[in-house]
């Protein structure tokens, strides 16, 4: 037991070491840690009521300055404060929607891969139907039907990401299910559910982790896209895509209204992609070679 734990720890340590050697992945991780810290301490950095939502018309459309690092918007609100608080929205939507995709898609993929045959056929044909609708269009349709609020946005993005997880987990489960440890688990009388969730899935984590990291990036992008066309987070809540949308009316005179929220999206997606790519290389070094 102790040996097994040591072996597990050494494997994790090895992966971590490989990740640490990847400078780009470390850069991505560092940016992400900063972003998470900004989201956690957003209230300490800038007060929500006075700086993020309260209007101050005398300060409207001011350019970047010492008082307002990223300038102010059309209602005189501090753009830096709104971006910092917006990181909360983006990260929460990203994490919750990916959790929805991972739980629903992962379970369906695991059942399809484990049982095979008719179960696999039915599940994967349904997933094919979902995949036939471009994911952002599926999200748009769901939000259009259910209404625009944060929960529906998370649900819509989560559902549209489900088929990719189902496919990846199914492939991973199929690669593992015939191995000896699964056989022995079956021999001692473990139920199928126990075998799937306690034996097989922990051994399929590498592709799931990589997919989850990359999916958070696309979920953040989808949230911003939905908000940009008025179907996502509604004003006055600070959301990067919604900030871009309202800044469109001031492109000529106030570039900072669109520049900084856009950069926030780019930097976040870039960080997640760099980390995702790094994790993929660290978890499966053959891919890097």
């Amino acid at each position, binding site marked *: 037991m102790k040996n097994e734990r040591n072996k597990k720890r050494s494997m994790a340590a090895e992966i971590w070491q490989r990740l640490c050697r990847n400078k780009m992945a470390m850069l991505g991780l560092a940016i992400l840690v900063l972003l998470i810290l900004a989201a956690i301490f957003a209230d300490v950095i800038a007060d929500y009521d006075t700086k993020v939502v309260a209007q101050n018309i005398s300060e409207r459309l001011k350019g970047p300055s010492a008082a307002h690092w990223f300038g102010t918007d059309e209602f005189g609100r501090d753009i830096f404060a709104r971006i910092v608080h917006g990181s909360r929205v983006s990260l929460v939507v990203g994490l919750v929607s990916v959790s929805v995709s991972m739980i629903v898609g992962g379970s369906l993929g695991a059942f399809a891969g484990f049982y095979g045959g008719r179960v696999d056929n039915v599940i994967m044909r349904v997933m094919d*139907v979902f995949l036939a609708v471009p994911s952002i269009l599926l999200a748009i349709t769901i939000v259009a039907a259910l209404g625009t609020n944060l929960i529906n946005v998370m649900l819509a993005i989560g559902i549209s990401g489900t088929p990719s997880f189902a496919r990846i987990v199914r492939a991973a489960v199929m690669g593992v299910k015939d191995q000896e440890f699964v056989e022995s688990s079956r021999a001692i009388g473990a139920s199928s559910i126990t075998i799937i969730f306690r034996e097989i899935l922990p051994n399929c984590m590498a592709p799931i982790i990589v997919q989850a990291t990359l999916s958070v990036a696309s979920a953040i992008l989808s949230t911003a896209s939905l908000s940009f066309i008025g179907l996502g987070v509604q004003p006055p809540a600070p959301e990067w895509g919604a900030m871009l949308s309202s800044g469109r009316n001031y492109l000529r005179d106030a570039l900072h209204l*669109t520049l900084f929220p856009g950069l926030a999206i780019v930097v976040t997606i870039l960080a997640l*992609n760099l980390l995702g790519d790094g994790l993929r290389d660290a978890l499966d070094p053959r891919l890097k070679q």
Partner: protein
Amino acid sequence: MHKYVIKRLLMLIPVVIGVSFLVFFIMSLSPGDTARTILGENAPMEAVEALNEELGLNDPVLIRYARYMVGLLHGDLGDSYKSGRPVFNEVMSRFPDTLKLAFWGMLFAIVLSIPIGIISATKQYSLTDSISMVFALLGVATPNFWLGLMLIIAFSLHLRWFPSGGSEGWKALVLPVITLGTGCMANITRTTRSSMLEVIRQDYIRTAKAKGVNSKTVIYRHALKNALIPVVTIIGLQFGSLLGGAVLTEAVFSWPGVGTYLINSIKAKDTPAVLGCVIIFSICFSIVNLCVDILYAYIDPRIKSKYK
């Protein structure tokens, strides 16, 4: 080969049925009374009830879906609640503009990404490789609607080279095409590079080089052909994001396509129009995926031989 094409064509039928049911079912979850949306908040209850009955909205969802499918098979996607005109005509009148945007966007992406991917792979770790990979990473991370806004600021408002909206003339096409194609270009570049890197390390490439074959011939005749399968796959997959991206790009540039119509229909709660747009987009995506599958057989003789 014909057997393969026919088999793939037949597989399109259940996908179209599935997609239409999925989208129809999602839209049927829409809260609120459709007849009231059409007639307005102050309409009398009797009129609302009569319209619901006339539109068949009191029937169960499966009956409504069956009726919709019969219409769909006859090219009837219902009438728009907003304009009263057939949705099929409304969508089709805008479809050429969206197709034009998607076609040029994809062409822009393919024409630039494949050569860049090849050069990056053949000159791995060089300055050219590093620069192109940084651009590819940024291209993947940049939301197309933000890129569109930045292009408008630079090339429309400051330099005045291109218009910021409309669809008249080639100049109006330049910024939307760059906006739409950049993300696809970045993804295809990355895939081309990694696929080429994998292929150029194979023994047969080394053998060709050892035999003294010209390096250009090795790259373009031996390596590229074998590296194309993942590239074609990603091009097919990117078409889906291109269609989704077209909705956003059209919104940025006021492009009079299906995307703009879709967004306006959502805002007007015009359910048949939303349904029609999403179904048409999904059928297009399925057809492109079918073409990609058929293309595999032409690129890879091993796939072709399976169906001989």
